[in-house]
């Protein structure tokens, strides 16, 4: 009995240790991968057409989902905000509520989550399939480094696209808030825009939103290209890598958002 318990505990500890060392090792590998991507980035920018193509695939093709989602989120935010503000007789503050919520928080976070689902998963699947069908190996044998030709342009395509998409998400969210608040509910348009103009500062509100979206963009793009490049060259391997991209990116965005919010707004009195 005693030996069984000991064996069970030992087995559990061994598995825990294995998981911890495995995670640390993978993080180290991802860090080295990031350094390698950075090293090859000048080549990606020298041939800007490659990066522009990825901006089109990751950014432009994500516009519909980002703009539609932004507008709906802004409309819902306006409805919910109005109901709450009305209780305190502050319904004319609706513009500032919608704008701050979107610019500081919802724009970068929701755009990041949507980007991870729409573009991040596509990047991982594409790179994973290129690996499975030996396209990356063929490139290596043609003396073309896949990190420079395939990975770096996709990484920078994501890094450039997401902050722009987050900005558009917020803009369309504010427009959605305007449609519901001013056009539907009947709040004075001057008050809506005036309060927003007076209450939203470029620093720290807008810049913090930009910083967040850039950090999310780096995280999601790195996770997407890394998972694709590191995927097992099988159908199951590509499927697992795609799922991991969405799950890990989503968790990373939410965790990074919390950490950054703590540092950005602690003691700011806002």
């Amino acid at each position, binding site marked *: 009995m005693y030996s069984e318990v000991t064996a069970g505990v030992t087995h559990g500890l061994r598995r825990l240790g294995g998981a911890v060392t495995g995670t640390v090792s993978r993080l180290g590998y991802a860090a080295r991968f990031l350094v390698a991507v950075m090293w090859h980035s000048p080549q990606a920018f020298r041939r800007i057409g490659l990066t522009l193509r990825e901006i089109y695939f990751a950014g432009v093709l994500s516009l519909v989902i980002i703009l539609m989602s932004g507008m709906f989120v802004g409309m819902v935010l306006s409805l919910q905000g109005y109901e709450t503000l009305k209780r305190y007789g502050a319904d004319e503050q609706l513009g500032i509520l919608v704008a701050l919520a979107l610019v500081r928080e919802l724009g970068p976070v929701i755009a990041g989550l949507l980007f991870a689902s729409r573009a991040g998963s596509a990047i991982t699947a594409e790179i994973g*399939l*290129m690996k499975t*069908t*030996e*396209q990356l*190996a*063929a490139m*290596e*044998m*043609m*003396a*073309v*480094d896949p990190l420079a*030709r395939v990975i770096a342009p996709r990484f920078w395509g994501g890094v450039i696209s997401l902050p722009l998409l987050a900005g558009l998400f917020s803009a369309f969210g504010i427009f959605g808030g305007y449609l519901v608040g001013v056009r539907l509910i009947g709040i004075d348009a001057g008050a809506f825009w005036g309060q927003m103009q007076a209450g939203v500062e470029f620093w720290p509100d807008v810049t913090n939103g930009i910083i967040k979206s850039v950090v999310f963009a780096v995280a999601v793009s790195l996770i997407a290209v890394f998972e694709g490049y590191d995927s097992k060259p099988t159908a199951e391997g590509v499927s697992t890598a795609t799922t991991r991209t969405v799950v890990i990116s989503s968790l990373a965005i939410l965790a990074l958002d919390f950490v950054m919010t703590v540092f950005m707004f602690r003691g700011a009195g806002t």
Partner: protein
Amino acid sequence: MAEAPSAALHALQTRTDRAERRAPAIELSDVSFAYERRLVLRGITMRVPRGRIVAIMGGSGCGKTTMLRLIGGQLKPQSGRIIVAGQSVPDLDSDALYALRRRFGMLFQFGALFTDMSVFENIAFPMREHTDLSEELIRDLVLMKLHAVGLRGAAALMPAELSGGMARRVALARAIALDPMVVMYDEPFAGLDPISLGVIGQLIRKLNDALGITSVVVTHDVYESLKIVDYLYFVSEGRIVASGTPDEVRASTDSYVRQFVDGEPDGPVPFHYPAPAYQSELLNHVQ
């Protein structure tokens, strides 16, 4: 007097050129390789003379493709020497390895064409990556390569629109795009219909002779290989178990060669995966 150093230099250069021509294009000496703890190749020694087609034959999983990856520098051996064009591949740094690979062409098992590019763009890819040729010249060269494999009319098609045999021919055109010194073929005959099989076999032979290429063909298609290659190595369980010219192979009485050539299910390569005695396993189950 003034011409003496030049003449001596010329003689030295000529001797060097001759020596280089005499030296094999590829030479493996006592090469061993393991994936983690699983030993895949054990003491492989082989030579591929310049301008010849050499086949590496053996059953699935015997380490044939691993040998190609070692020659191409994608893997490093645990021990032994791999010399390609006079350079020790495992000792090359990244830049030197990429410089050497520019003199390689490789045909992958299923073509490995870039699926987001047309046939034309696939063949133009290595030219655009490694040369500063004008678009007009690239167009002419691509059409020339496609004409050589009989697919000039398919230049505008996407890889998804090609049959397996056509994809293999396009990949072959891409492999010779930069007139390489060595072309490696990984299972070029796998999964092809008889006509495509014959076409690919003939293309390998003709292109090798016309362009002065050295070819290494990894395959398990014994009949097609015997028609086109100059020399064969048989690999089993990570070792070279037999070698010879096609005529020597046909006449061989070696049990492994006979099993492979005649397609016998049992022999030196057993039909059954190692297992306990069948009778005892059944009886244990009953008990």
